[in-house]
């Protein structure tokens, strides 16, 4: 059973959103990293680019699979997690600790369209 952290927002495409100090941190869930297997590369977006909810923000490659990361929210990317460039395996090791991008949210109201941990748990079952 994969791990789901309480208090985060989730998407049905297995991304999570954590809101802290007005910024949204985005990562992939434990379920996502488990199904991908050993992650070998994370394609990161450029900082300062703007994103619509549902738009591709990057991609994750494992040995035998690849998956796009879809942005759960609308906003501007203020920071990308550079560490993932050299150590993509961090997403396998702790997917909730290692966020991928930090986004300046356009509006918090979007968050309510996302899933809570209980709803997300149902999807993973």
């Amino acid at each position, binding site marked *: 059973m994969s791990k789901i952290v309480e208090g985060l927002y989730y998407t049905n495409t297995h991304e999570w959103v954590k809101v802290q100090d007005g910024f949204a941190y985005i990562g992939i869930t434990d379920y996502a990293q488990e199904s991908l297997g050993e992650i070998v*590369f994370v394609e990161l977006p450029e900082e300062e680019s703007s994103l619509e909810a549902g738009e591709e923000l990057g991609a994750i490659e*494992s*040995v035998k699979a690849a998956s796009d990361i879809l942005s759960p929210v609308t906003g501007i990317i203020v920071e990308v997690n550079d560490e993932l460039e050299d150590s993509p395996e961090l997403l396998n090791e702790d997917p909730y600790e290692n966020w991928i991008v930090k986004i300046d949210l356009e509006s918090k109201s979007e968050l309510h369209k996302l899933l809570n941990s209980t709803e997300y748990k149902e999807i993973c079952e």
Partner: protein
Amino acid sequence: MYYDKLIFEISNSGRKGYSLPDFGISNYEIPKDLLRKEEAILPEVSELEAVRHYTNVSFKNFGIEKGFYPLGSCTMKYNPKINEDISSMPGFNLHPYQPISTIQGSLEIYYETQRILSELSGLHTFSLNPYAGAHGELVGLMIMQKYHQDREDFKRTKVIVPDSAHGTNPASAVVAGFESIEVKSNPDGTVNVESLKELLSDEVAGIMLTNPNTAGIFEKEICEIAELVHDAGGLLYYDGANLNPILGVVRPGDMGFDIMHINLHKTFSTPHGGGGPGSGPVGVVEHLVKYLPTPVVKKVNNEYIIEDENDTAIGQISHFYGNYGVVIKAYTYLLSIGKENFANVGKHSVLNANYIKESLKDLYLLPIKGVCKHEFVFDGLIDKSNHVTTLDVAKRLLDYDVHPPTIYFPLTVKEALMIEPTETESKVAIDSFIEVMRKVAIEAKEDPDLVKGAPYNTVVKRLDEAQAARKPIVKYRDLLT
């Protein structure tokens, strides 16, 4: 002894393995500023060192002549030796710019091969220019695109591909400028006609199908599917990857397909060469012939000619005439096999596949029951209690000198183990494969760790593929730093 040296690692400065004549032509100077300055690291070995090196490298490979190679979807049949001898005859080693009068023999081979492919497939005319199956798909889809554009039907931007299709199908659709949309499969892997009906519209340019499909099941509703697609204004593309089992039994053209490719390296016995060169001739029905790529080889008044330009064609898709050397091999095979043996190619491949399926279905999970064509898919072992996966089974087969089947394809079967024995395998070879498969299944039950740790008898054991992709070392120079 395991030989693991690279050619660069046995090089010695000043050594050479060649000789060239001195024709007494004086030396001319290349302007200095146009010369390279970076020194290239290149091999320096004697002739014997080179020969011994590549001979030792070859020992690390598994080919069809070593053992059974039931790689699903790849049709690994015997590659007759005579094909190689014929294609390397000096009389066929010609410059592509030789005048027509001096290449009549080569053009006859090209033309006759086109003609035989038409006869066997039921499509009107072929081009042999495409280099491989995926190249054929691309060319075929360009033809589909141009056909709709010429009718000023610009709305047709989508191509339907089954969820069980080869990855090349959706990829080719995109490269040809289409959007690829998926149609769902029935539990037996065939196209779900109801889902297809929902997808069909005036935005659909056509559909790509293999028949039999990737699970080895014949689409028995093919005539209905063809009618539906045609009625909706679309065209049908036949992916020739699975043509082998229906050779001499039924023809794609008669099923209603408009465009197809044939993999000469699968169906017509030319060697796979470690991944190529193949050849992917494309055939079309009569009203699409004008779209075939240039150059086109034709026969006019008993002379073979090459048409370089043609306003109605999709354009040029190869520098010259495709993998011509491969075409000669396929033509040799076609002439050798002849009409009287032809139907048995498909029939015996189907017989072999069903025989293996029936002999193993008590140990391996058969998700699609009933008669298959040239190949079939197991969903791993029936007994999954020891968590022995398809990958483990495949690796254990290596220890028994069998090339594993295709694994984890099609994507619609989770633990897919796709087995395709071809018609060139004898019952003895097939029986010993069945015996090995049974043995591995029993090992998985009695000593699962043995199977999970396999292989043991290969030159290297399981590899760390993640490391290779995380820190790519892709050339000799990368090893020096």
